[in-house]
């Protein structure tokens, strides 16, 4: 079974979601910055938002079709939806939450199915407790189980695991994959975390400003961004305009200067004649820092600069380094301490040739 949709939703005078895509069975990641329209897309599949145009179908069951005026009510769509805040009913026990979607079935069947799904997601031991009396991971599991107990035709997940630690996250995903091995429904998984894209996705669809800017296998889409917008979404914090100064087809590289400065980078060979403009993207996390000139490295780019600022953001320190152009580098707080980094200190940036991507404008 697969989900096919083509929708246009006008959300404001300046923002329109306009997306055409299909999602086969398995996990499809919807990835993009906040405000890119990911949640709106989920809500229109569920029927919580009515598109202005287009159609939505699961297999040959049509949920919405603007031209024929068909618009199935939410409760008849057979979609499982896990909300960002989970939306477990706080006044019902976990067991009653699970059974909520089974109201039209006899009590015995209801209990049996609720227990079966609880077992699949390892929450049998908390069935009698209220949602506020169980752990965060158990709540996520309960929300997931509740949305699947009705055997929906499609599962919609709106950043359901972003609040959990990575180990808990991947255990839950393993259980979800195990469940879906026997059900084979399409799962749309919304996230704005790169890590989750690589960890979970069979396929990724990248949304920006309400449009699909890329889709495919995560490593292909996000490691080789085709253009600048995608590069920024995919977490390439450094994007520079440069000029090709030397081409080395024999070793598969070329050199370019960045932003009109003397800063030169060796990058993978790409199209672009001598003197042609290129755009180079580098992830902040792919750059090494040294507090003295390093020697004997395989990395081809060693660039001298000065630390401009250091800002702590959660577990990483965001360093800005001026080399003639301004680089953003992610380092750990421990590294800052060990290297004695401080604004004004001189440093050397170390960048592998293949950490540099050429993107089109």
């Amino acid at each position, binding site marked *: 079974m697969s989900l096919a949709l083509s929708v246009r939703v006008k959300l404001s005078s300046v923002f329109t979601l306009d997306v055409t895509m299909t999602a086969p069975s398995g996990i499809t990641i919807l990835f993009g910055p906040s405000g890119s329209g990911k949640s709106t897309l989920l809500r229109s599949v*569920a*029927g*919580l938002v009515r598109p202005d145009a287009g159609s939505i179908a699961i297999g040959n069951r049509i949920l919405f079709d603007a031209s024929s005026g068909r618009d199935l*009510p*939410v*409760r*008849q*769509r057979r*979609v*499982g*939806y896990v*909300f*960002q*805040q989970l*939306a*477990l*009913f*706080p*006044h019902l026990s976990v067991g009653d939450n699970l059974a*909520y*979607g089974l*109201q*039209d079935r006899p009590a015995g069947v209801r209990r049996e199915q609720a227990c079966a799904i609880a077992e699949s997601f390892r929450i049998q031991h908390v069935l009698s407790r209220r949602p506020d009396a169980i752990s965060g991971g158990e709540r996520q599991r309960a929300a997931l189980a*509740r*949305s699947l107990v*009705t055997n929906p035709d499609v599962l919609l997940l709106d950043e359901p695991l972003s609040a959990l630690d990575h180990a808990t996250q991947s255990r839950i995903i393993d259980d979800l994959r195990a469940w879906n091995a026997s059900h084979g429904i399409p799962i749309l998984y919304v996230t704005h975390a790169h890590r989750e894209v690589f960890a979970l996705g069979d396929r990724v669809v990248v949304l920006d400003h309400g449009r699909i800017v890329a889709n495919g296998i995560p490593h292909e889409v996000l490691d080789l961004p085709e253009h600048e917008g995608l590069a920024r979404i995919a977490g390439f914090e450094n994007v520079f305009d440069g000029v090709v100064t030397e081409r080395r087809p024999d070793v598969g590289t070329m050199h370019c200067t960045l932003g009109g400065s003397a800063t030169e980078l060796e990058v993978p060979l790409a199209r672009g004649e001598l003197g042609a403009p290129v755009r180079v993207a580098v992830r902040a996390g792919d750059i090494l820092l040294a507090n003295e000139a390093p020697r004997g490295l395989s990395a081809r780019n060693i660039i001298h600069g000065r630390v401009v600022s250091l800002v702590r953001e959660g577990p990483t320190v965001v360093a800005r380094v001026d080399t003639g152009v301004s680089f953003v580098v992610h380092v750990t707080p421990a590294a800052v301490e060990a290297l004695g980094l401080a604004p004004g200190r001189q440093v050397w940036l170390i960048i592998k040739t293949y950490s540099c991507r050429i993107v089109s404008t």
Partner: protein
Amino acid sequence: MDWTAIALSVRLAALVAAILLVLGLPIAYWLTFSRWRGKFAVEAVVALPLVLPPTVLGFYVLLAIGSRSPIGRLWTAWTGHGLAFTFEALVLASILYSLPFAVQPMSAAFAQLDRSLLDASATLGAGRWRTFARVVLPLSVEGVIAGLVLSFAHTLGEFGVVLMVGGNLPGVTRTVSIAIYDQVQSLQYDAANRTAFALLAFSFLVLTLVYALLRKPWAVAPLR
């Protein structure tokens, strides 16, 4: 002490609170969840009794149910006697007068609900009725009780509206507040004191009980 008046007041307040529970829930639900643009006008109408002098409200109700009005004539044709200066007239006027005291706590409670719970209910196959019965109502029960109690207490203490549409007929329309007023007018301060104190004690008791039950203090006025 005027036990007849006290019994009449309690009967009136209980009846009005019960009717307002049935009437207030759908109004509050509609006011909270409707996306109609003209909704604010209805909100204003519901809130009117909060700011209107009771005499003004009473006066218009009296006109509306008078023997020359369509409602008054219909009532006369149906029951054989006029509507003004009857217990039924008091009930009608009190419903209007206490409406905001029932509706506002209820709709405030509905408005505080996490909307994603309602969305979740819908994706789990529940229609509007089931969502209301199983999610909205249980999670708003404090607001509903507050609305019920406030409309009861407010009806118990009303004076101006009762005087306008009910007059002062012992056993029919003479409520506690009217009885107290009468007693003071005829300089029976002892009697007035006893009745007034009974009303004060009763109101205090009811409110204390409710607040203790809810443990989530409402503002003195039931406004959002």
